[in-house]
């Protein structure tokens, strides 16, 4: 079986995979940054008392979570030009990932904020802090600690989701595998190499998660009662 497996072709295609790896890495970083911005805005809207701000955020989050990312991507890629908005594939891809992941991130941040006990809010209120002071000094610093591990989990999901961009011919990792598969009829070599590259990215993010957990663990949290 292995005699049919061409390591030489893989080596030949390594520069292509290198480019794909770099592309997946940086477009994931840009998308994740965008997703964080979208998530923070959505979460802020969702936590307001005003229905006018809360409702659009809730509808958006539900709509994104209820529909497949592929459908969202195709809507942006094929649908938007029909509505007169023509964007390069790469931008469409990053936009789709950021808008999609943003909805999940909004919920992750909200869960983090709501996990902070009512007593913390009341301590802030009682000492005369305004809403924004309480958020900035008391709630968010505690919420961020709870939020970082699931956020890194979401980052891993985003990296894997970025494979879908190969379908709109963005030159990333999965696309590199597809090229090897179709040029040389070597799908095993192509997609195994792609998978190996994702594994490297995954372990990179995972060790980041471990490091952050250790860093967050430096300061003890949680009061004994």
């Amino acid at each position: 079986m292995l005699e049919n497996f061409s390591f030489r072709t893989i080596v030949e295609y390594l520069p292509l995979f290198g480019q794909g790896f770099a592309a997946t890495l940086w477009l994931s970083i840009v998308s994740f940054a965008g997703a964080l911005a979208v998530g923070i805005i959505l979460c802020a809207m969702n936590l307001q008392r005003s229905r006018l701000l809360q409702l659009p955020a809730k509808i958006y989050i539900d709509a994104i979570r209820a529909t497949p990312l592929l459908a969202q991507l195709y809507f942006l890629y094929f649908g938007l030009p029909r509505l007169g908005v023509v964007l390069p594939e790469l931008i469409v891809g990053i936009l789709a990932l950021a808008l999609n992941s943003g909805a999940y991130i909004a919920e992750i941040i909200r869960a983090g904020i709501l996990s902070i006990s009512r007593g913390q809010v009341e301590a802030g209120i009682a000492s005369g802090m305004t809403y924004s002071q309480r958020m900035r000094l008391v709630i968010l610093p505690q919420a961020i600690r709870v939020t970082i591990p699931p956020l890194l989990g979401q980052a891993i999901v985003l990296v894997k989701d970025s494979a879908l961009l190969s379908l709109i011919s963005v030159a990333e990792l999965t696309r590199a595998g597809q090229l090897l598969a179709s040029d040389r009829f070597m799908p095993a070599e192509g997609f195994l190499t792609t998978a190996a590259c994702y594994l490297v990215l995954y372990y990179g993010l995972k060790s980041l998660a471990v490091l952050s957990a250790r860093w967050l663990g430096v300061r003890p949290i949680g009061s004994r009662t």
Partner: protein
Amino acid sequence: MIEFRGVNKWFGALHVLKDITLSVEPREVVVVCGPSGSGKSTLIRCINGLETIKDGDLVVDGQRLGDRATNMTELRTEIGFVFQAFNLYPHKTALENVTLAPIHVRKIARGEAEASGREMLAKVGLGDKFNAYPSELSGGQQQRVAIARCLCMRPKIMLFDEPTSALDPEMISEVLDVMVGVAEEGMTMMVVTHEMGFARKVAQRVVFMDAGAVVETGTPEEFFSDPKTDRSRAFLSKILRH
């Protein structure tokens, strides 16, 4: 300093404060007691607006709560509130806990706030715990930090909501000693507690509440030795039996 006039409050259909009329003079120490669910916590939480009242007047430090002219955030800086569960900020050290509001709310310079924070922590007996996080402190130590946190704001009024109820018995006295010290310095205080020793020592008046109403008020002497109502007699017999 604090004046309730015909105050009522409901939680849904539950009438939690019934026509409360009560006033606390400057430098007076008032102990509020009563069975659980009698509305005593709700009563003092109304004073700094953690709860809102439905009708009647509540005037604190010359300002009527609920008035447009009353800035609640500003008024709260004059009122210290000590919680049953301490509610220290777990991500901050003891010193950071006591300086956070002075720096950000009172806008006191950091150096100055830290100097008075250290002084205040030393005063409550925690001169060696400036850099300890709440999770590294015992319950009694945490509650003393919480009291120091209030005192650092130089409040005019201190409210205590069952400050020793969450503590192990051997830690109760270290917190009560600090509270006695605060009272002896002339602070206006309202204390929800069943610590009758504390009431006898520093309170000018004891208010007994039951089912949302003030049933009896009197000096600690009168209240403990000669309670006027059946309900207060029943209550006292339960808590003093132990």
